[in-house]
């Protein structure tokens, strides 16, 4: 009897140790891929970084060159995305938090927004293609920027909604007791109280759209030459990486790696700092 319970006890502890060991391995497994991917990008990218990247245009097949037009195009399209997406996102988030906090309508919009948040980005690309490229008859930087705005939008809606809900009700009551109209209360008191969280939400969204490739493939397309007119097809770093990486030329490969490094550093820098800010903010409110 005693021997049986002894062995059972041992077996349970052995099982526990195995499980804990495996879970540690799982964590190491995740970190291993992170390290491998980042190291590859940094090593290959660093050897391809040089001054010409920022002064020369994307080269014809097999030639040397830079990424100037792609960097510029990416900045323009991300900028268009931010300018279009942020105001709508903040307004919609305000509606959810201030007007529809517990209503059926609010829940429906939140549900739809969450689906948009994880919807495949290539689907957004197709949507904007049929909406704009087909109607206007040509690819353009505007279409690319609008596609990015659709991807930025749900992120901003969600963080604005969450952050405004965290603002204590006593603030609203105090402002209303002073006779402040709703719009003033929202723009001058609530936005100010929630500003840190809302800004990090926008930053997070920017980090997300800067690396997006799929929605740009058939909206902005690509352009080997310099253009500062978003009505034309525009070069952008993600699509240049895609085309150059799949090409057979070594000089294009190294440009693709350089582009990959620039995008990775940019995206990781923004997402790390905004996550840190957001964590501190959430912590401070608890």
């Amino acid at each position, binding site marked *: 009897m005693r021997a049986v319970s002894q062995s059972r006890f041992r077996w*349970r502890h052995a*099982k*526990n140790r195995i*499980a*804990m060991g495996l*879970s*540690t391995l*799982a964590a190491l*497994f*995740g*970190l291993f*891929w*992170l390290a491998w*991917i*980042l190291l590859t*990008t940094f090593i290959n990218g660093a050897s391809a970084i040089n001054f010409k990247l920022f002064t020369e245009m994307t080269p014809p097949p097999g030639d040397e060159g830079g990424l100037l037009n792609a960097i510029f195009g990416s900045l323009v399209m991300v900028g268009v995305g931010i300018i279009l997406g942020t*105001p709508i996102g903040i*307004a*919609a988030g*305000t*509606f*959810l938090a201030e*007007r529809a906090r*517990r209503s059926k309508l609010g829940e*429906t*919009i939140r549900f*739809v927004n*969450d*689906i*948009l948040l*994880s*919807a*495949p980005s*290539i*689907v957004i690309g*197709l*949507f904007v293609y049929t*909406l704009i490229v*087909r109607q206007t008859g040509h690819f353009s930087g505007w279409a690319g920027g609008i596609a990015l705005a659709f991807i930025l*939008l749900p992120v901003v*809606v969600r963080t604005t909604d969450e952050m405004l809900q965290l603002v204590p009700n006593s603030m*609203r009551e105090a402002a*209303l007791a002073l*006779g402040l*109209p*709703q*719009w003033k209360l*929202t723009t001058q008191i609530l936005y100010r109280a929630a500003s840190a969280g809302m800004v990090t939400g926008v930053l997070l969204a920017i*980090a997300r759209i800067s*690396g997006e*490739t799929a929605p740009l493939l058939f909206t902005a397309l690509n352009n080997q030459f310099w253009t500062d007119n978003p009505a034309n097809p525009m070069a952008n770093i*993600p699509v240049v*990486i*895609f085309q150059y*990486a799949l090409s057979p030329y070594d000089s294009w490969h190294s440009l693709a*790696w350089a582009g*990959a490094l620039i995008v990775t550093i940019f*995206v*990781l820098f923004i*997402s790390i700092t905004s996550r840190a800010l957001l964590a501190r903010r959430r912590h401070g409110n608890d």
Partner: protein
Amino acid sequence: MTNNHLAADLPVSRQQDAAGPTAKHSWKDVAADKAFNWSIAAAAFFVLISLSGAALSMLWGGRLAFETFGWRFFYGTEWDAVGKKFAALVPIYGTLVTSFIAILIAVPVSFGIAFFLTEVAPRWMRGPVASAIELLAGIPSIIYGMWGLFVFVPFMSDHIEPWLDSNLGPLPVIGSLFQGAPMGIGMLTAGIILGIMIIPFISSVMRDVFTLVPVTLKHSAYALGCTTWEVVWDVVLPYTRTAVVGGIMLGLGRALGETMAVTFVLGNAHNLSISLLEPGNSIAAAIANEFTEADSDIYLSSLIALGFLLFIVTFVVLAAAKLLLRRLERQKGA
């Protein structure tokens, strides 16, 4: 809720009993409030409309393909740009197989990571490790694709796939999954990369819900002499079952729609084969690869129809995930 009523009523009542410049002022406030309320409501409706707009625009764009090929579009295997005959079975199959491999890898690993982060790791280690895992979600998918093509594909073809072919290939039944030339490009490689990509999504949901389990419940189990593993497997996991499934669905939704990483390593070959080492195609990869090359209306329409299909499938999966997770959110609120 009450303050909303106040906000609407207050300026109006002031307008009624006040006189002179105050009345003018509050009339302006009422107008401004109305405009403000209308514009934020319009923005919220815009979010609502854009989802259905996306679905409808793709249905409209794909109608030519649906009309021409009918149901055959869903089960046929031909994909012939010259003969203008298109059917979606090969990309559908590729999407399902790669996502299944991804789930097979990501679920146990994510569970392990969540277990590690909530019970095993020392407290100081939890934050940094959790952030590092979440960084995996921050890396743009095109970087996964490039790394996959230049680093992981050669690694698979040199080390992993020859071993699979010679050791698992001769086995009965499952052997046919692992036969073929070890090119590195193919379903297995794409599935593994997808698995890595969705680990952060699943593990962060699991970790979040594991921490929501009432401490008294866990302490009671420990007091009865349970080991850490028994507490997690027999108490924490049953308690959070619904949300864990929701998290897995969320990851599945991501895997189904992931484009760039898969496009690089799947090979873009329209062939249907049992072997996981063979190149294949997926819905998203087919669209990304061929969209700008589509030279006929029916070709373009078939690709948009594929997009519509992808949208519907991910919508169902993500909606299910949302519903499963919502129940937990209610528990959190209660």
